[in-house]
């Protein structure tokens, strides 16, 4: 579904991504883990089109994604839930969700997706008239995910959904992400610093360090890998 080949991104002279290959198949849950500054957010930005790669290719669903303008990419079924949530603070919760449903598919299926989002995150229904800027961090994250889902995506990309959240709240968020993947058949690409939680739910994992994929493998292989256990799982 998504195939990234030898992707190079540089900011000025600084190499953020260096020959990255990542593949996501339909229906999979793929996690990209790694420390701060590994290039995880840059990877997402390249997929969404807010940074322009220096080399490499990204193909999605038969499209050469790099030839598609950034504003068109969500309409192909890619939902990007950005790092730091980035809800629209001066708009209400419901308006934020409506913005998620700005894509053609989202608009068509708005009534159903809205119900799905409200079932996943009942607090959003309770607060639908409230300004998003006044929500707590956890609620904003739920809104950001809900907004992504409202676009009726085929591929849901989540950038550090646990960032800045209390552990219990982060657990809820991870549970919901798994539920979205299982029950709604959405392909998930997750980027996380919380390696244990991210690897726990994935089918396939990539370890990104300073712009390179240093390891990749199935869930079982990575969990069993000595280096991963030592460096990331603290075992």
């Amino acid at each position, binding site marked *: 579904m998504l195939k990234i080949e030898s992707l190079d991104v540089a900011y000025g002279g600084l190499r953020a991504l260096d020959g990255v290959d990542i593949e996501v198949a339909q229906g999979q849950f793929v996690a990209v883990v790694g420390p701060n500054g590994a290039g995880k957010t840059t990877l997402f930005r390249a997929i969404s089109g807010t940074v322009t790669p220096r080399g490499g290719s990204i193909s999605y669903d038969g499209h050469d994604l790099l030839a598609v303008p950034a504003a068109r990419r969500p309409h192909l079924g890619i939902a*990007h839930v950005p790092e730091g949530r980035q809800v629209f603070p001066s708009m209400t919760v419901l*308006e934020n969700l409506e913005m998620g449903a*700005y894509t053609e598919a989202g608009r068509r299926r708005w009534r159903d997706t809205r119900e799905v989002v409200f079932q996943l995150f009942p607090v959003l229904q309770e607060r639908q008239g409230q300004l998003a800027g006044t929500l707590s961090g956890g609620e904003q994250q739920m809104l950001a995910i809900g907004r992504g889902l409202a676009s009726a995506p085929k591929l849901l990309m989540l950038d550090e959904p646990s960032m800045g959240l209390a552990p219990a709240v982060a657990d809820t968020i991870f549970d919901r992400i798994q539920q979205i993947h299982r029950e709604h058949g959405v392909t998930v690409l997750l980027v996380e610093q919380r390696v244990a939680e991210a690897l726990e739910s994935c089918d396939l994992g990539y370890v990104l360090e300073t712009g390179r994929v240093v390891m990749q493998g199935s869930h079982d292989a990575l969990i069993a890998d000595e280096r991963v256990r030592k460096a990331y799982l603290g075992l």
Partner: protein
Amino acid sequence: MSAFELFAIDFLQALVAGLLVGGTYALMCVGLGMIFGVMRVVNFAQGDFFMLGMYAAYYVATALGVMAVLGPYVGPVIAGLAAGPVVFAVGWVLHRFLVGRVTGVAAVGTEGEGHYAQIILTLGIALVLQNGGLILFGSLPLSIPTPMSRASWEIGELLVNQARTVSFGVAIVVALLLYLFLKRTPLGKSMRAAADNPEAALYMGIDVDRSHRTAFALGCGVTAIAGGLIASSQSFQPYIGFDFVITMYAGVVLGGLGSILGAFWGGMTIGLVQQMSTLVLPFQLQNTAIFVVFLLIIFLRPHGMFGRSADRT
């Protein structure tokens, strides 16, 4: 009549005049506030779009014969409204070929340099419009000849200028329509989203550049309507934009940079202060009074009346 009664009448007279002037100022500020609120661009040429609005209204009223057909009462109002679409088109083209190159997605990543380019560009557009206006329209002051500008309705002891009252009503209706557009329509909502967070808006599939272009053109058009309305109660020449752009900025900052509702009330406040100051200060100090009040409000509320710069990232 006692001295107090006389003062009370003067006070009410100034209050009414302030509200009427404030209504058109509010609309003028809303145009500028919209451009800044959505695009974060400081548009120095806004006063000159206001001037273009005045001339557009003048030529629609006279040369196109709108006044001759609709009469001296309805004609100026229709001409004032017609200035909107005309200057909207000018703004659209300017954004498409010039402003869009240094703003929006194109300017992402060139934070500092992007802003310098924006300032120089809008300043340049201002100069071209002013001097181009001088060549095209001439330096002779003009005004839309309507009997309403000198006629007043008498309400008790109060005199209410007809031209200003009509302009006030039209300005409020236009501002209200714009408000509903932004609040209710999908296009309006997507523009607010692009204003709140352009990056996230892009992730929603919103064409941020198109939102910006619409906001810029609408902002120009709305300010031009204010100009077109004021053109029937004030004479103007190609350099008049400069007088108004400062007032406009005072209103927008007063209301709170980035807030369109704030721009409305900021403009209203400017109108009220300007007219009410004549009660206690000589006529020539009107603008001084505006800035004294401006400084006071900014001193007490640095983000302005409706400021929300704190919650923006």
